[in-house]
């Protein structure tokens, strides 16, 4: 299992880096899909099957397709992006290191008490249970999420509509 975790983690981080470093946005998108798949693999290792499915559908399926579509639409499928000035890139790298350092240091310094993990055997992540929790305890946020999606749909349509006011 540990080996599997390391392999998956390596894929996750590697593809994430590649996403960022590839010149061509199409390649970035492809790498990101891979990254998402590896994260889905993590979910599977947690035995969170429903989440696994949803993740693949929403991210790899919906979001990434949307992104690819946009990239195609904008004709960005070539590596014509100019690099940032060297100073910015160095600054980006430095702040990357800094954030990582601080977050890790914070975590290490705060010395969390890691209890031995116990399996209670209780079912908490089957679809049935999740459904119950979602529709009992989180009923209102759930409805709001639906409203949010609706609104964002309308917003997206309105935003991307060609405006004819100026003409």
């Amino acid at each position, binding site marked *: 299992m540990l080996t599997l975790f390391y392999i998956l983690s390596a894929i996750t981080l590697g593809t994430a880096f590649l996403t960022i470093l590839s010149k061509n946005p199409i390649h970035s998108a492809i790498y990101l899909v891979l990254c998402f798949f590896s994260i889905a693999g993590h979910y599977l290792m947690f035995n969170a099957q429903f989440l696994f499915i949803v993740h693949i559908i929403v991210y790899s399926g919906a979001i990434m397709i949307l992104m690819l579509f946009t990239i195609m639409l904008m004709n960005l499928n070539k590596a014509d992006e100019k690099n*940032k000035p060297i100073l*910015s890139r160095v*600054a*980006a790298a430095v*702040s990357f290191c*800094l*954030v990582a350092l*601080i*977050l890790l*240091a*914070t975590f290490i*310094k*705060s010395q969390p008490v890691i209890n031995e993990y116990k399996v209670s055997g209780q079912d908490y992540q089957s679809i049935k249970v999740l459904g119950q929790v979602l529709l009992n305890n989180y009923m209102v946020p759930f409805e709001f999420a639906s409203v949010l999606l609706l609104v964002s749909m309308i917003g997206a349509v309105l935003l991307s509509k060609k405006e004819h006011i100026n003409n």
Partner: protein
Amino acid sequence: METNLALLLLFAPFAGFLINVFFGKKLGRNASGILGTLAVTVSFAATLFFFLQVMNTKVPVMVNLFEWLKLANFTVNFSFQLDQLSLLWLMFVTGIGTLIHMYSISYMHDDENMHKFFAYLNLFVFFMITLVMGSNLLIMFIGWEGVGLCSYLLIGFWYKNQTYNDAAKKAFIMNRIGDLGFLIGIFILGYLFHTVEYDMMKTELTNGWPVDKTWLGIAMLCLFIGACGKSAQIPLYTWLPDAMAGPTPVSALIHAATMVTAGIFMITRLNFLFNLTPDVLEIIAVVGAVTSLVAASIGLVQNDIKKVLAYSTVSQLGLMFLALGLGAYEIAVFHVITHAFFKACLFLGSGSVIHALHGEQDMRNMGGLRKVMKITFITFLISTLAISGLPPFSGFFSKDEILMTAFHHNKVLWIIGSLASIMTAFYMFRLLYLTFYKDFRGTEEQKHHLHESPSLITFPLIVLAILALVGGAISLPGMSWLNEYLAPVMAKPAEHHHLGNTEYMLMGIAVVGALIGIGIAYAKYIKKGEVPPADAEITGVTNVLYNKYYVDEIYTAIIVKPIYAIGSFFKNVIEVALSGFVFGLGRAATLLGNEGKTIQNGSVGFYLLVFVLGVCSILGYIFLVK
């Protein structure tokens, strides 16, 4: 009954003031004048009643109205006290006041604002009565400031002339300097005694109330500064000669007979306190003596008839202060009374002259009036003899007493006082000769109009001249009615001088001195027939004297000008700097904004970088540093 009568005494002039202010114009000239005179006459009658009563019973009349001020340490009531001293004062305030009101009916007859003149005069009498009648220092202070106000209003009565207004303003402000001293003195006394009532202070002193002598001395000195302001002593005397800008009756009433003696009244009133501070008395004596000499020396060369009289007033007041400083309060009071008679008479006489000459005040343009203005001349002569200190006129007795007391205390003061007296005799006779003798030196037209004044003017002159003649009788050496009368209000019994050889010798010296003064004047102005030269030709010492030792100029240079200079400095430097500083803060904010907005360069990447760094530092601070 007593209370009502006392209130009548107090408020009759005030009623006269109110009626004259509101209805004076409708009443017409004569009516308003008569009303004003009547109001004061009523007061005089009431005073006479009380005077006789108190002389018999020797019990002062007290009137307590209501509480006025209440402070943590003491309360101040509206209360009045009619005792020997205040009644004596009231007698000549209301008495001479009546005469001068009468005089003014005729004198001011042609003035368009005659009703106002009488209103102010009445108001003045009201405040003077308040000053004298009050039973505590604050009531006196009301009167004190009130008479100052009336003096201001009356000096500036002809308000269209800004020079007169300047003189009025100067009088008020110089008085206010003294008033500040007075006020501080009241504060200290109130703090020391927990009261400002005269009687209570006296009682406390006799009961052995612990009093800090140093503070008492300071208080007395402050009060004396107040007296200096009101009674025109060095260094606050310069307003009085300028105050002659007012109509002549005003000069007679306020600036000779009554208001300027308020300082002497106050010191006499508080004699039981001044007795405790001999050092302050010493200062008073010296200031008085020096004032009398300085003022007399200036008087020697003045050419304005009223200015001469003004300086003579300052000089005589100086003599009174000399007496006060020597602890001889009765004698000072005596001189106040005789002075009130003869000086009022002199001023009114000069007013009569000015009236006859239609406003001419320069003696160089007078002369020979003896023949046309007989009554004026005779009364003037009597008063002049009185002020010069020739027996048996009243001035002789009072002045001689002062000099005699001075001789017994301090020979230097006596010499100064005697010199001042000789000068007085000289300049008064100079005035007399220049005005009434020889030939008329004015224009033909003036000569044509020369006339004796109407009886409303001459009657007061006659009365005053008689009083100036016989007034000395109230305190003859050896058998003084005045001393006896005033004994209850004095803390120390009056000094009795044996009429020995020394005394007779002193009298002799005084008389001879006066005669010398008169002789010089006679030699100069009758024998040689000199007339003082025009202003431009005055030179040397005379010039210094003529310009009053340049004191006004010095005051302007060292006090008034610096104040204006500081004002300019404040206005042009400090105000600008302060205001600039405040605006500077605003400008700094603008500048900061303008500079700061360049950080907002619009580059999202840069924003993000800063954002990340900010989050880093916050996290680092919270989790790592703390």
